[in-house]
């Protein structure tokens, strides 16, 4: 199996913090979270898509959107995954996830767009005690 390029001590720190802060961690870790076939995100540039401009929401289910009626990837616009789709993300290249208050609409740029959306939507997560604990421990390590 390939080596990790993430500092192992930092991963261990995150894991140990989660063990302390999330009592149901074992259940969460073992959750099978299978993404359906066809899911995933694209790292290609513009024009790299058979469905121009389309992207997936959070990397799990919806491979294309309604702008490509002939998309061969079995269009599933309604199946964005709330586990990974943060409120400010849009499902598939521009249309807002119908059950989220998706503002601002934010189409996924090649491969790397989710972080911004997650962050702008995730202020409440930023204050979550679990994230605060992880952040403080990682910061503490970097100050040592």
């Amino acid at each position: 199996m390939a080596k990790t390029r993430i500092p192992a001590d930092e991963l261990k720190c995150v894991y140990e913090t989660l063990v302390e802060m999330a009592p149901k961690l074992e259940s969460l870790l073992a959750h099978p979270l299978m993404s359906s076939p066809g899911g995933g995100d694209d790292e290609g540039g513009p024009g790299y898509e058979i469905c121009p401009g389309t992207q997936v929401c959070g990397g799990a289910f919806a491979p294309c959107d309604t702008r490509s009626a002939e998309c061969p990837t079995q269009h599933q616009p309604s199946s964005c995954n709330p586990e990974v789709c943060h409120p400010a993300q849009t499902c598939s290249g521009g249309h807002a996830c119908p059950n989220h208050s998706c503002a601002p609409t934010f189409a996924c740029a090649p491969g790397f767009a989710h972080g911004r959306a997650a962050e702008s939507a995730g202020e409440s997560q930023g204050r979550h005690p679990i994230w605060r604990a992880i952040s403080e421990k990682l910061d503490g390590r970097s100050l040592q």
Partner: protein
Amino acid sequence: MTLAASRFNVAAETFDGHHMLLFNTFTGALQVCGEDGEAAIRATVAGRRAPESWMVEGGFVVEDGFDERAALRRRYAIKETQTSGLSLTIATSTDCNLACVYCFQDHPKRRLDEADIKGIVAFVAARLRPDEPLQVTWYGGEPLLNMAAIRRLNGAFAKIAGRYRQAIITNGVLLKAAQVEYFAEQGNVDYVQITLDGPKDAHDQRRPMARGASSFELIVDHVARAAAKLPITLRMNVDRRNAAQIDALVDLLDRRGVLRNVSLYLGHVRAFTELCGDTQSHVLSKEEFADLEIHLMWTLWKRGIRNLASLPRPRFGSNCIADNPKGAVIAPRGVLFDCWNEAASPPSAANGDLSSGKSRQTQYDPFAFRDCADCAIQPLCLAGCSWEARKAGAGDCTTLRYNLQDRLRVHHLDRVLNEAMSPRTDEVGRVPPDATPC
């Protein structure tokens, strides 16, 4: 039925070290296994245990004798029959106002003129049904040097195409308030890509104005303003000369309040053409660059910018605009090219023109490379960049070959963390069924 393990399974240990992730690059399915998933698959194909539904549904096991590579070829071939719409890259100007040290263009002073604009409108109108999508990427040189052409074409495309989206590749120097307002009003901009190569000194050494002045402050100011109204993708082009500046750029962007309003990623500087000077001597290897991608991802993760490790998507149909039958790069003088790398090439080297379309079907077979034949990543990359693969006579590996496992690992970590912090998570740590639909 006799089963075999898929040739496209990739395994990774989870971040906690106690579980295994299995990802199938052909189907895009991801499975968390509480035990050694590869051993479970081996036992299944050996007939020592019954197949579990996830193995079959996710494509981790296939019927013995099923030719997965042939299936991959068939999936690639649908580009000839099932694509719709048009995907165009339009170089409004081959000229540029920067003089980047690694640039692959020589910036001849050509811009789209009136005849070109009329030709492009006619080209699109003749090939696009009203219900089909049109995607345009404004490119150069520097595309904003010819805003007049962008405005004219946008007006025309809005009338021709019922479903029109646009993106902009710009150095950001001319992305002033008026341009930001204009593109924001369009309401269909998927992203604006702007490049910063590090903090001021590093950036200005690599991306000075054409006459040598600093471009850094101007660009940072423009990015900060534009990010309030447009989706900005900030790219840092990296080679050996500035690889050590990644953390400094992240720090600077965070201090200036920009980092959390943009999507930051790394571009791999490569010597695409002979115009790149001594760039080749500074190019990072794929593996080195893959390391830096993970370094940046983890650096951002630690700053609370998470959910960057989305799952790679298996390719369907064409790999890029160069092998897309409905794609073209349009340049001044009304000429067509296959690849972005050719946008500033002489018109005499073009592959067709606006009046008659492409003059030849470019012959390219992403399955012709021997080294790719046994690679489990193949469904995700299809031999990578065809421009580079042709030059090398070998597949142009993407960084997924080197860092897919880490991406899967961080993806899993994010999902666990999201779930742990979700108010929807119930007593036993699961998401209730009625919370699933989106």
